[in-house]
């Protein structure tokens, strides 16, 4: 340990002791493991399916009971992506070189096949988010991961087809804006903000949830685009450093 680190340890010690004390105090008051009975959770487990016709109660909470909070959450993501873009994006030429880090054809073939598999998996996660485990957030991340795989197995130039700001920025804006637009549409119709205008639909099918499934897709688009913008920014600042230092 360097003297600098030891000094930092001494400065941090009282804060850590205080935080640790609060943490232990809080944990000592926590319910015994497996014995927690939260009033809201138990209630929602009983009423969500009859009320909202969605069999995934967690998604019903995210897009309906706590739908307004999720809008804030979506804009936290949006704001942080804007922050990253402001920090990293500046005038630069797309790099032409730096291609083909994958040597083996077998890896490339398998990887390209996996791109399709992961994309379908992501879309399935998002589409059935109201029925089975999944949802727009999870599906959006999986879709973004599938597209990033293009860079890993095929190199920079094929990736550039998707990893372009001019392509991704509109999708990100669209995802964030359509969530708000769906909320405002309910207001215009004379109902509370984010009210489910389309009715609850048929329980246990893709058609369950009504407006909730639209919100779900808005989030999926926003999350996938936001993740791809982040990957693009970091990738560009890694691949184009010589253009950026001046």
């Amino acid at each position, binding site marked *: *340990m360097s003297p600098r*680190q030891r000094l930092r340890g001494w400065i941090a010690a009282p804060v850590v002791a205080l935080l640790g004390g609060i*943490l232990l105090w809080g944990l000592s008051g926590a319910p015994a493991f*497996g014995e927690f009975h939260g009033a809201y959770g138990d209630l929602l*487990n009983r009423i969500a399916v009859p009320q909202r016709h969605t069999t995934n109660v967690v998604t019903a909470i995210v897009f309906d009971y706590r739908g307004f909070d999720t809008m804030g959450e979506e804009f936290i993501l949006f704001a942080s992506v804007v922050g990253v873009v402001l*920090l990293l994006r500046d005038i630069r030429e797309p790099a032409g070189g730096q291609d083909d880090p994958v040597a083996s054809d077998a890896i490339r073939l398998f990887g390209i096949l996996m791109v399709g598999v992961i994309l379908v998996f992501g879309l399935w996660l998002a589409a059935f988010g109201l029925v089975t485990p999944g949802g727009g*957030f999870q599906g959006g991340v999986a879709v973004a991961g599938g597209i990033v795989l293009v860079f890993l197995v095929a190199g920079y130039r094929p990736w550039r087809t998707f990893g372009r700001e001019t392509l991704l920025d509109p999708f990100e804006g669209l995802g964030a804006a359509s969530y708000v637009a769906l909320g405002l549409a309910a207001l215009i119709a004379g109902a509370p903000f984010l009210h489910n205008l389309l009715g609850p639909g048929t329980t*246990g099918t893709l058609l369950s949830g009504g407006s909730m499934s639209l919100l779900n897709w808005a989030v999926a688009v926003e999350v996938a685009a936001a993740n791809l913008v982040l990957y693009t920014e970091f990738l560009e600042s890694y691949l184009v450093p010589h253009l950026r230092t001046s």
Partner: protein
Amino acid sequence: MTILVYAVVAWVFAIGIYGAIISRNLIHLALCLTVTQSSTYILLLALGYKHGARAPIFKDVKLGTAAVDPVVQSLTLTDVVVSVTVIALVLALALDVHRQSGSIDPDDINTLNG
């Protein structure tokens, strides 16, 4: 069993904080923050767990079947999203620091070069 899960929470929280204190590398620091935040996922999910209960998904399951708390699960989802945004911003700041000062060791960059 009761103690174990909360001990894991405290331990994950503690090693994250410890790593952040002794960190000599901003990327390492960002990962330590993520580790610290991961303890809150464990805490939330552990709080909502009930013995013998299933996931709060009622596809082909009779309504009224015991299920774990869905509220803490949706809070965990929010938590994960916030964690992603935080690490993205911190890493972007680390890149910017590296571009400005040529170093990602926090001890090297707290002197102002004018």
